[in-house]
C-alpha cells in the first residue's frame, strides 16, 4: 500500500471517529464550538503523531527483540500519558484561553481510545515507520475534520427546533451516525 492510500484511507474511508467510533467522549463533548473543536483536534493530532512515532520504535526495537510484545498496551499507555502531559504544559503556558476551554478534556486525551487505537492498528497492520507516521497523522487530521464538521453542524442546530429529549448529546449521536453513513460513501468512490 502506498503512503497516499494510507493517508487517504485514514482520513476518509476508515476515519477513526466516524467508521470506528473511537474517541467519542471528547467528540461529543467538545463539538459545541468550532474554535474549541479545532484546538482539541490539533492536540489530538499532535499526540497521535508523536505517540505513534515513539511507539513504533519502542515496539520494534525493544518489545519484539525481547519477546515481550504483550507489554505493548502498558508501554503505549505510558508514552501516551507522558505526551499528553507535555501537551498540557505547553498549552497552559502559551494558550491559556484554549487551556480553560478544554478543561478536563485535555488530560482526558490520555484515555482517548482513538489515540491508543491508532498505535495498536499501526502494529496490527504491520506498517513500516513512515507508513505508521502517515497513518497516525491521517488519523489525527481525520478526527479533527470530523469534530470540526460536527461543531459546524451543531452551531447551525442552535436555530433548529429539536425535540426536547434529543437536545445535546442525543442529536449529536444521530448526526454522527448520518455523517458516518456519508463517509462510508467514500469507500465506494475510491474502491478501497
Amino acid at each position, binding site marked *: 500500500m502506498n503512503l497516499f492510500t494510507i493517508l487517504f484511507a485514514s482520513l476518509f474511508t476508515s476515519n477513526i471517529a466516524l467508521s470506528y467510533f473511537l474517541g467519542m467522549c471528547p467528540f461529543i463533548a467538545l463539538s459545541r464550538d468550532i474554535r474549541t473543536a479545532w484546538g482539541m483536534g490539533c492536540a489530538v493530532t499532535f499526540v497521535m503523531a508523536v505517540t505513534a512515532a515513539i511507539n513504533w520504535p*519502542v515496539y520494534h526495537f525493544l518489545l519484539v527483540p525481547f519477546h*515481550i510484545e504483550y507489554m505493548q498496551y502498558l*508501554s503505549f499507555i*505510558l508514552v501516551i500519558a*507522558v505526551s499528553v502531559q507535555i501537551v498540557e*504544559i505547553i498549552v497552559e503556558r502559551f494558550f491559556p484561553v484554549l487551556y480553560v*476551554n478544554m478543561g478536563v478534556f485535555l488530560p482526558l486525551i490520555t484515555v482517548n481510545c482513538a489515540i491508543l487505537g491508532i498505535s495498536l492498528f499501526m502494529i496490527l497492520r504491520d506498517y513500516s515507520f513512515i507508513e505508521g507516521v502517515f497513518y497516525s497523522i491521517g488519523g489525527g487530521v481525520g478526527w479533527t475534520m470530523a469534530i470540526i464538521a460536527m461543531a459546524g453542524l451543531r452551531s447551525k442546530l442552535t436555530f433548529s427546533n429539536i425535540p426536547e429529549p434529543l437536545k445535546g448529546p442525543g442529536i449529536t449521536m444521530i448526526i454522527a451516525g448520518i455523517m458516518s453513513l456519508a463517509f462510508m460513501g467514500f469507500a465506494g468512490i475510491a474502491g478501497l
Partner: protein
Amino acid sequence: MNIASILIMGGIAFLLAAILVILDRYLASYGDCDITINDSKTLTVTGGQSLLSYLMDNKIFIPSACGGRATCGFCKVNIPEGAGPLLPTESPFLTRSEVARNTRLACQVKVKSDLSVIIPEKYLSIQEFKTIVESIKDLNYDTKEIFLRLDEPEYISFMPGQYIQLKLPDSDEYRAYSIASPPDSNNFIELIVRLVPGGCCSGYIHRDLKTGHKVSFTGPYGELALRENSDKDIICVGGGCGMAPFRSIIRHLFDTGTKRDVKYFYGARSVRDLYFVDEFRKLEREKENFSFIIALSEPDKDSQWEGEIGFIHQILDKHLQDNNNAEAYLCGPPVMIDMTMQVLLSKGIAEEDIMFDKIQ
C-alpha cells in the same frame, strides 16, 4: 514475566519521567514575578498560582464568596497589564465596560509574568480576625447560630448588613456568612449557618465545630450596608438563610432609637424552617414603627399556619403601596432577589435605593 521485561518497562518509565521533570522545570515554572498594587506596593512572588491566592497570602483580602471557583464573581479587580487574555470562565461575570476597563476575576488570573493591579481602597482596610467559638445554638433542624469572640484584633468595626468570610481550618477555602449581630457589640459577632447538603464549610460547622475552638475570618465585606444618614422608610426582604443581615440592621436601628418606619418581609418554606420569630414579634409589639411579615411558600397542612402563604415577592406586592419612597435591603437566593427587584421597581422605589446580597 522475565527480567528483560521488567528492565525495559522500568527503563521506558524512567526515561519518560526524566523528560517530564526537565519540562516541568523549564516550562511550567514562571520564576519570580512582581505584582504591583495600586502603583505603590510591590509583591514579589513565585509565579504559577492565581492572583487571588497571592493577595490572600499577603493579607490583602478581596471578597470571594465561592472560594476561587469562578461562581460568585465577587473578586473583581482592574489589571491594566500582565493578565493575559480574558478567559471564558470570567466573561459571564463581566459587563462590556468592565472588559474595556481591564476588569478581571482575581481567582482566574494566573500570575505568569509581572503584572499591575488596581484594588479598590475599601478592600485594603479588610483585616483577618482570629476568634474563639463562645457558643453554638440550634435555631431549627438545619440552622445554627454561632457566637465568635474576637481574640486578635479584639474589635471589629462594620456596617450592619455586611458579611465576613470564614476560613475553613487546614485549608485555603473561605465561605461567606452575614453578620447577625449589631455593630455596637464589637468584640463578638454572631453568624447564622444553615446546613447545605454536601457543603464543606457548613458541614464542618454543624458537625465538628465546638465551643472553645479557634477559627479565623476576614472582613467586613459587602455592598448591603445600612444607610444610617438617610431618613427614608426601610423595607427589608429576606428569604431562607437571608435572615442574618436584617437581624443586625433591625437590632441596630432600634438600639439607636430610630424613628424610621421599618418593614421586614421574611420568606421561608414551612413552619419548621422559621427561627427568631419570637424575637421579632416581641419587637413588633414594643415598637409602633416596626412590622414583621412572614410568608410561607409550602406550609404543612397540620401546622395550622394563619399567616401569609405564597412567595415573598407576591406578598410584598400585596402589602406595599404604590409610589413608595422607601429604601430596600434584600438578601436571599438570586431568583428571589430578581423577582423582588421587579416588584420594588414597579412600586416606585428607585433602583439606587435597592441594596442586595445574593446568596449563591
